[in-house]
């Protein structure tokens, strides 16, 4: 009997396999629609018309929110100046108008329907002649309103933006860290990371210098930039990173060129990278993360970017553990052996050979991780910490619901949105595990 050649799975095979599950496919479609909705949220749910004609002139108010115009009002016999994002377009007598699908924005306070109007209740509006008429059709608040008369559906659509952003950005950070630490832990193990003493000492010294010149000396500069704007702070952090890289590079060069000539420093020793990373993971997993997030969010009030950063910095352990386990296996495979025999540098083996082949399980972890991050963020905004006061999120809608029992729609709909999104990511993660993880076959 001839031995069968090992089955090779290409990416396309995996996708075909993935697609077989109807639920997983539905989850992917749901998330794509949700993603598209958040991208187009301003066009889908907005209190300004997409297109309108007023006093014989054409306007595109959705696309020009900052525009300021003046219109001659015949009734009052004077010019009215208005900015496009302030005026209530519905109170104007428009000759022709195309409204967005949901004619309310997340911050629109519908003063006629404030105080928790339920989805089925009689909702009213004031027309151009000052008469109160019942709201009909598309203009109804389909999912009810909040205390201030904000449309719940519009809020959910715009809140999805925050949730998805938090999920994606924080898992992006976590993936980068987890991939890096997991890869070096798995690739080098405890025995294969050999460096001369000179290099190890210089590395420690270099890190110390990085702290001093990268952060300590520039502390007030970074702080001042942070007070100015988020972009300026990113710029300063970038400069810090550049300085640190420069310091580490020169320390490395110095060790290689000068110190290694001294026999004492040239002696090679092993650094137990794997143990170091594993212990760090264990410590991080022992720390009550929610406490860190809460105490930091209290200090740095109202920055969603900060929430993302903290969630990212504390949730990389899952990715790192999977990558480590995968690379521990890959390191002993023939093609790594071949690369080693060819004399490729280690970083090239990690980047070009090991990581691309060990990426599959990371996808599983990312998918579950995004679900976790979305829950974390909405829990935080449910507790009213983390996001700026005027940003509406799913968690905040739920918070309103939890303090006003009579407004059941504030509890049911946003919670259901969280549930569906989280479950979709979980379904995808589960399906990815079935497809990619060889053990579960």
């Amino acid at each position, binding site marked *: 009997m001839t031995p069968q050649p090992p089955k090779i799975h290409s990416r396309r095979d995996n996708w075909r396999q993935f697609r077989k599950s109807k639920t997983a496919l539905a989850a992917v479609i749901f998330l794509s629609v949700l993603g598209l909705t958040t991208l187009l949220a301003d066009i889908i749910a907005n209190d300004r018309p997409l297109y309108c004609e007023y006093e014989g002139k054409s306007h595109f108010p959705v696309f020009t929110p900052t525009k300021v115009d003046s219109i001659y009002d015949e009734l009052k016999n004077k010019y009215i100046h208005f900015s496009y994002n302030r005026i209530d377009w519905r109170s104007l007598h428009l000759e022709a108008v195309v409204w967005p699908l949901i004619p309310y924005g997340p911050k629109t306070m519908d003063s006629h329907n404030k105080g928790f109007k339920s989805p089925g209740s009689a909702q009213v509006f004031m027309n151009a002649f000052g008469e109160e008429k019942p709201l009909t059709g598309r203009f109804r608040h389909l999912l009810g309103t909040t205390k201030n008369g904000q449309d719940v559906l519009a809020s959910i659509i715009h809140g999805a933006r925050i949730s998805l952003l938090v999920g994606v950005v924080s898992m992006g950070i976590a993936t980068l860290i987890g991939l890096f630490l997991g890869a070096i*832990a798995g690739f080098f*193990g*405890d*025995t294969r990371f050999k460096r001369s003493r000179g290099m190890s000492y210089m590395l420690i010294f270099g890190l*110390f*210098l990085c*702290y*001093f*010149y990268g952060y*300590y*000396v520039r*502390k*007030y*500069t970074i702080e001042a930039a942070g007070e100015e704007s988020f972009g300026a702070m990113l710029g300063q952090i970038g400069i810090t990173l550049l300085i640190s890289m420069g310091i580490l590079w020169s320390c490395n060069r110095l060790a290689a060129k000068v110190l290694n000539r001294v026999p004492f420093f040239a002696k090679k020793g092993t650094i137990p990278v*794997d*143990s170091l990373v*594993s*212990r760090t993971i*264990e*410590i991080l*997993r*022992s*720390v*009550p993360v*929610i*406490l*860190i997030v*809460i*105490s*930091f969010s*209290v*200090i740095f009030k109202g920055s969603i970017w900060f929430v993302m950063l903290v969630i990212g910095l504390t949730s990389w352990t899952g990715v790192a553990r999977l990558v480590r386990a995968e690379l*521990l296996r890959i390191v*002993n495979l023939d093609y790594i052996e071949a690369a080693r025999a060819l004399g490729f540098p280690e970083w090239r083996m990690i980047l070009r050979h090991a990581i691309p082949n060990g990426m599959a399980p990371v996808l599983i972890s990312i998918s579950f991780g995004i*679900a976790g991050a979305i*829950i974390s963020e*909405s*829990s935080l905004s*449910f*507790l009213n910490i983390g996001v700026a006061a005027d940003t509406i999120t799913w*968690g905040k809608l*739920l918070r309103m*619901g*939890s303090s006003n*029992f*009579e407004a*059941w729609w504030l*509890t*049911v709909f946003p*919670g259901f949105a*969280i*549930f569906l999104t*989280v*479950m979709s990511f*979980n*379904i995808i993660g*589960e399906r990815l595990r079935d497809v990619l993880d060889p053990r579960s076959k």
Partner: protein
Amino acid sequence: MLAYIIKRILFFIPTLFIISLVAFMISVNSPIDPVNNFVSEPEELGFQVKDFQSQRNLQDSRQRIREKFNLHLPVFYFRLASLAEPDTFYRIHDKQKRKTLGQLLDRTGNWSAVQGYYGQLATFYQGHGHAFAAIQELPYEERQAATDALSTSMSITSALLSTAKPEGITHRFYQLDTLYSNRQYLRLLHDELLKVRFSYEQLYTQKHLWKKYVPVIVWYGSNNQYHKWASAILTKLDFGRSYQSGQPISQRIGELFFWSFMFTLISVILAYLISLPLGILSAALHGSRFDKISTVIVFAFDSLPNFWVATLLLVTFANPDVFNWFPSSFNIIRTGDEGLIELFFQDINRLILPLIAYTYGQVAYMSRLMRSSMLEVIQQDYMRTARAKGLRERMVLLRHGFRNASLPIITRFAGVLPALLGGNVILETIFMIPGMGREVFEACFAQDIPMIMAVFTLTGFLAILGYLVSDLLYAWTDPRIKFHKQEGNQ
């Protein structure tokens, strides 16, 4: 095995040390001054010329509180600093003042000049007191205008005391100059201002910026905050006093932890009681309709955020408009000297909603774990052997299957340890349970640092303990596992 246990226990120490250090560094670096919890500065202070004495009293009482909580000591054994900073920089306790001085130092690098300028400015500020006394001799109409001018001058000066930007400083100097220029009775202050301006110019003519770039390590020895904190815990199990209530932390934790403990424990037990049979049954009936439905439900449960479930339960079952079956919060009504357990089970009705919210997630997680582990076991040879021996199906499943499949689940019990103490922030907030989670949540807002640190360290400790216990349980229940190999090596 023994060697492994000893190694793990030895590893405890550095891990705990790092966790406590992380907790400590986070809390010390928070920009909020904890002393503000006790002494709040009156809003208008600094504008009232008469209040110099009360301001001094305030500062004295702040200092006393700092000494009571060891906040006047250096933070850690050593400190990495630049040559420009003096050794005694930590003695400036007021965070705003320290920040301003640090910024000035950052721009000039000359400590004695910075000190000279700041000292001059402080004297100038105090000088307003003399000016106020001098004004009292003016006729009434002028006195009113003069007091106003003096107040303006004071507010500008107090702003100067927390400004480090050159533009801001020169702008305020200019403001003061114009204020004094046509007011004869402020002559005295004007002369003082000239001195301040002179020392400010000195600041920029005598720059030693290079000093900023020379790192030095300042050694403080064992008389520091961390040492005092850690040694009190190690020797007396004393976590200090809470800033919020003034009670000793260990006493406060002793009071609150019971509620968190009870809810966590009962919900875990309930979760075991439900999820083990559920997992076994759906594995045994693999592919049946029961299995399919329960898998879907359990999977959905896993994605439900607990705060939503809790709110939904309240909106539905504790709502006078829908079903008013259960109370909406966990009120304890202390009538006499009944024991805590008695108090807990006083009213079963109020336990039901919280327990559902606590339990459903664990049921979801554990029954999935049980099912998959049971499915694995069912395929094993010894199961077939047991059947071949003629054992009844139930015996096969329970005696042979369950015993082997339950290992990962039973060891999970150790993972609950940290929650027993730390509680659940969200559920305790929603159901108003007076447990640790809520206390910590409030502590975060009040910057009650001793409390945060105590909980941080204790839950960290319990988590590591949990890992150790679960590893040992694993080894104990499954003799195939040996720990002589080093972890991480294959």
